[in-house]
């Protein structure tokens, strides 16, 4: 399936969970937040949350700002 991850197309295995995705990205355990189709997904749900074809996923973190 294909999702849009931080604005770019990305091919993922069918049934991939958010937990699978962040492990695949090397981001497991990092302080981040995830939104799918403009809805927050709480960290506690990453393991159960299965992505669907066409989902728009945003992975964000804190950076310097004023």
């Amino acid at each position, binding site marked *: 399936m294909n999702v849009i991850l931080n604005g770019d197309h990305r091919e993922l295995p069918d049934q991939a969970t958010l937990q699978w995705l962040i492990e695949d990205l090397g981001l497991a355990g990092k302080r981040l937040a*995830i*939104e799918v189709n403009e809805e927050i997904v709480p960290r506690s749900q990453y393991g159960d949350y299965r992505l669907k074809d066409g989902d728009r996923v945003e*992975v964000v*973190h*804190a*950076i*310097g*700002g*004023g």
Partner: protein
Amino acid sequence: MTDQSQIPLPEDKPLEFAGRVYQSRLLVGTGKYRDMTETGDAIKASGAEIVTVAVRRTNLGQNPDEPNLLDVVSPKDYTILPNTAGCFTAKDAVRTCKLARELLDGHNLVKLEVLGEEKTLYPNMTETLVAAEQLISDGFQVMVYCSDDPLLAKRLEEMGCIAIMPLGAPIGSGLGIQNRYNIRLIVENANVPVLVDAGVGTASDATIAMELGCDGVLMNTAIASARDPVRMARAMKLAIESGREAYLSGRMAKKAYASASSPIDGTFF
């Protein structure tokens, strides 16, 4: 002429946000530093207890071991104040705040800023009002960046914003406080903390804000873009403390002519 001794001195109320009292009245941003080390050193030198951060897409596929801002500026040591910088609509600002709350484990203190246009980064107040209302009803504690309009400032307070943060001058301009009269009016009318947010260029600007009776000042570029940011951070700490002390002291009245400091009596010439 008003007899100044009849005017009560300002009350030295502690600075409090969301039930927590802060000793430092300087709030600092974390943008524009050369690297994480300089960020950490400058913030430490500033004595700030509240620091702002931005929320942005994680760089994917790049070095995942690069230092994370929240490792240098840890939520254990500082109150993290996520901002909505870069948002030009209420919708984007609300989304950003929700992501920030998730990022910070439910911490719901945010700095709302909705910008109007690129050139001045002046706040879009109609969108700011819409966003503030949604955020407050969703349980956020909103510190709001706003124009220096006294009526809008009061409106934001009445809506439930916990701090009113008018700009002194455009973000990153370093022009200093351009409308002292309006800042003063906002301070006089407010029952929540008022902080000048944006426009400070050097220490005297921060002191002026505090002498006007502001409860604090939020700045980023004035420190980060100084040639020696760590030293400027220290200067700002002192400037804020000086301005606060001067405000609480009740300054002398201005006079048109001289008034000798040394007595005339007892002169021998």
